[in-house]
């Protein structure tokens, strides 16, 4: 016992339930946007416009919430947009996301400080308790905003951060209060239907004003970013994170619409002090309009509303300072920003460097900018951030959808994120009508992120878990030659590939790069990855022994998190023109046609791909090439010509269902760019009619000893399923086979991106 080493194990505590994280999201949303936004929205868009503003924003918000929900369910780690952009686009855009997140959260904090000060000053002013203050109301509001922001910065420095559990109950209270106001509004309208006349000028200033009000109130829908940040602490995150995001958006939208309705019906036309249309009367108070309306709706409405605003704004202010500090600390920790950002106080154990800069941002924006410019700056930055997340969700689903473990998948993909991107772009552009300052600040902030990254962060960034890393590389002497890459999986599949690879490389005057990918699971530390490469080394040496006499050879062993993505990145890096791979003839996983690696490479590689199945050292006398007239058929004929010359074989080009004899092999081969010569003297054309193309090929393959098959030009959706001709022939044919796919250039680029 005495000799047993003492080990301390640490594990993550997951104790936030669905209720807690839903309330966290609601707390961030209800912080300010609704209290400040309603009065201004009524002033700009009228009584109907304010309800439409929140209802339509809810629809846009749920589209982005579903993007967040999908990504968080698959990547349930703290980091939010910073993480998603890292996975989708790499370090540069991820820095921009983190940089925007820091700014957006800080400016949202400024907005909450301003909301607090406006409502508190207004309340005390109403009680005549501020008559002794020698400052104007505007300056008093700014001074209170400064004080409350400074107080919460200090609280955050002391580390007394409110936890999700305690905050949840405050948020529940605020939400219930707002729902209560909405219900009283509905009851008032039922009791006194004449108040519905307040809606008679539904959109008095025109429908285009709606885009302006939707833009500056969008900050009231940003809570799912905070929910995503809680991924590490949530119980059953794959199920609860998406649910919380969607629930919170639905709850706030219904609440906001109900409260907007209540604000309009709260005031009776012709009541004391109200002149002209009600919407004009509420609108004249701007940020304070909601408070003025509620004070007429119920007794002591002013008091309860001020109390609700105090709770809502301070809890949201605390959360945003915490969140902004965490975002800037992460950038400092990864050395994307100076080390000072990651400095931690020895006494308080809080990141004082990040907190200091966050404080400067929060206080600077709150004090220097007018309220609507603060709201617009926060909104526009969140719009930019969500824009990036919506692009990330598309890219991640297409590139990594088969590897990630999803807990939620949004319906109508990719139309929902595309719709969100479009709507957010329109709202961001329209915000120029509300705040020119916001439209100056936001692009400067984004451009500064690009400049900082290129001139500072790129050189200093600490290495994190790279997707692919080269472990060993032995370069061939510099020389010319057609760049061919051969993916070698293990010694068993390496040898059967050698002879055909030799023929192809010789015909193409190739420069061969042997590649072995070592998949390393996330749980295995990178330092242990070298233990996994022995088998790969053995396979590569086997192939080298056969090929190195004739061709210049480069060998590469890489470790990666995913083999297919690793292969594609190697193809891109080394500017490979042709990829040769082996296939054992079956797919291990039901979801894939030829296998997860082959499907992926065939679909996305921007070079020519040749897949060899069971060729070994066999001799071929009859080669069958099904021809459809496209670039893949021509490439198949080229490969068949190379193998036909070496084996002295006949090549039968099988054309099926070409009634009008439109397919002309000579013309098609001439039209193909960068294609090699075809052995026309060996090619016999056979035309045939058949109700089933795949069955006709399979029947004909019985009389041949090698099939060279071009991948079909089926639409992407069909290729993803098991309906494609390639899949049916490849799995139904027991003869040796070569499957080829020609580089699709621009088309393959589009596929990789969309």
């Amino acid at each position, binding site marked *: 016992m005495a000799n047993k080493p003492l080990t301390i194990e640490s594990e993550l505590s997951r104790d936030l339930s669905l209720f807690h994280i839903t309330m966290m999201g609601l707390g961030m949303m209800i912080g300010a946007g609704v209290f400040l936004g309603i009065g201004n929205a009524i002033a700009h868009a009228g009584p*109907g*416009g304010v*309800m*439409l503003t929140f*209802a*339509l924003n*809810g*629809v846009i918000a*749920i589209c982005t919430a*579903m993007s967040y*929900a999908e990504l968080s369910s698959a990547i349930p780690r703290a980091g939010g947009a910073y993480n998603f952009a890292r996975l989708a686009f790499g370090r540069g855009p991820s820095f921009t996301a983190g940089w925007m997140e820091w700014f957006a959260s800080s400016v949202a904090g400024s907005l909450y400080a301003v909301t607090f000060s406006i409502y508190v000053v207004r309340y005390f002013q109403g009680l005549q308790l501020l008559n002794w203050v020698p400052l104007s109301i505007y300056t008093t509001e700014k001074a209170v905003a400064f004080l409350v922001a400074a107080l919460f910065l200090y609280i955050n420095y002391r580390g007394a951060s409110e936890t999700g559990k305690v905050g949840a109950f405050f948020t529940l209270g605020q939400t219930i209060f707002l729902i209560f106001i909405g219900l009283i509004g509905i009851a008032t309208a039922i009791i006194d239907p004449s108040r519905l006349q307040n*809606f*008679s000028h*539904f*959109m008095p200033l025109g*429908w285009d004003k709606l885009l302006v009000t939707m833009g500056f109130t969008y900050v009231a829908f940003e809570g799912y970013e905070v929910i995503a940040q809680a991924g590490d602490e949530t119980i059953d995150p*794959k*199920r609860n994170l*998406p*649910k919380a995001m*969607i*629930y919170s*958006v*639905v709850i706030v*939208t*219904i609440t906001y*619409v109900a409260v907007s309705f209540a604000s309009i019906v709260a005031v009776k036309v012709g009541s004391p002090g109200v002149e002209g249309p009600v919407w004009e009367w509420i609108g004249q108070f701007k940020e304070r309009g909601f408070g003025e309306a509620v004070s007429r709706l119920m007794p002591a409405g002013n008091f309860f509303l001020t109390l609700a605003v105090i709770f809502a704004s301070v809890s949201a202010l605390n959360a945003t300072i915490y969140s902004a500090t965490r975002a800037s600390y992460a950038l400092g920790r990864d050395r994307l920003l100076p080390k000072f950002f990651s400095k931690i106080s020895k006494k308080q154990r809080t990141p004082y460097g990040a907190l200091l800069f966050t404080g400067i941002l929060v206080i600077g924006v709150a004090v220097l900018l007018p309220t609507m410019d603060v709201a617009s700056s926060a909104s526009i930055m969140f719009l930019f951030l969500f824009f990036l997340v919506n692009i990330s969700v598309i890219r991640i*689903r297409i590139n990594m*959808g*088969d*590897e*990630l*473990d*999803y*807990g*939620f*998948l*949004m*319906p109508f993909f990719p139309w929902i994120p595309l719709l969100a991107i479009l709507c957010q772009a329109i709202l961001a552009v329209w915000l120029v009508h509300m705040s020119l300052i916001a439209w100056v600040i936001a692009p400067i902030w984004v451009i500064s992120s690009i400049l900082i990254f290129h001139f500072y962060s790129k050189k200093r960034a600490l290495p994190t878990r790279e997707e692919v890393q080269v472990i060993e590389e032995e370069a061939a002497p510099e020389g010319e030659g057609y760049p061919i890459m051969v993916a070698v999986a293990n010694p068993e599949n390496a040898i059967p590939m050698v002879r055909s690879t030799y023929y192809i490389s010789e015909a193409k005057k190739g420069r061969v790069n042997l590649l072995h990918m070592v998949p390393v699971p996330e749980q295995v530390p990178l330092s242990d990855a070298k233990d996994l490469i022995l088998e790969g080394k053995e396979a590569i040496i086997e192939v080298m022994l056969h090929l190195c006499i004739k061709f210049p050879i480069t060998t590469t062993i890489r470790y990666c998190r995913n083999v297919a993505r690793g292969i594609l990145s190697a193809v891109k890096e080394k500017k490979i023109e042709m990829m040769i791979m082996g296939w054992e003839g079956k797919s291990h996983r039901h*979801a*894939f046609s030829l296998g997860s690696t082959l499907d992926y490479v065939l679909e996305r590689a921007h070079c020519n791909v040749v897949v060899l199945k069971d060729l070994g050292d066999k001799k071929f006398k009859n080669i069958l090439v099904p021809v459809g007239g496209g670039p893949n058929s021509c490439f198949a004929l080229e490969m068949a010509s190379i193998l036909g010359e070496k084996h002295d074989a006949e090549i039968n080009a099988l054309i099926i269902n070409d009634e009008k004899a439109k397919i002309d092999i000579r013309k098609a081969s001439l039209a193909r760019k960068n294609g090699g010569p075809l052995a026309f003297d060996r090619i016999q054309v056979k035309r045939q009619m058949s109700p089933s193309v795949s069955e006709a090929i399979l029947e004909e393959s019985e009389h041949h000893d090698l099939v060279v098959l071009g991948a079909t030009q089926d639409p992407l959706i069909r290729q*993803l*399923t098991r309906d494609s001709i390639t899949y049916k022939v490849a799995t139904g044919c027991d003869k040796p086979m070569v499957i080829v796919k020609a580089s699709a250039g621009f088309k393959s680029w589009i596929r990789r991106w969309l």
Partner: protein
Amino acid sequence: MSFDAVLGTILVFLSLGILLFFLFRSKRIIKLIHQKDLHSAREIQNKLNGK
């Protein structure tokens, strides 16, 4: 009631309807994924499409 009011009211209720639709649809998807123990996007999509 003016045309603006009719159109606006329809849009408000339509928006709320869309929200509720996505809420129930999402709940169904989450339930399906966990009941059938689905993992990758392709598996889930195939199941949702009834394949």
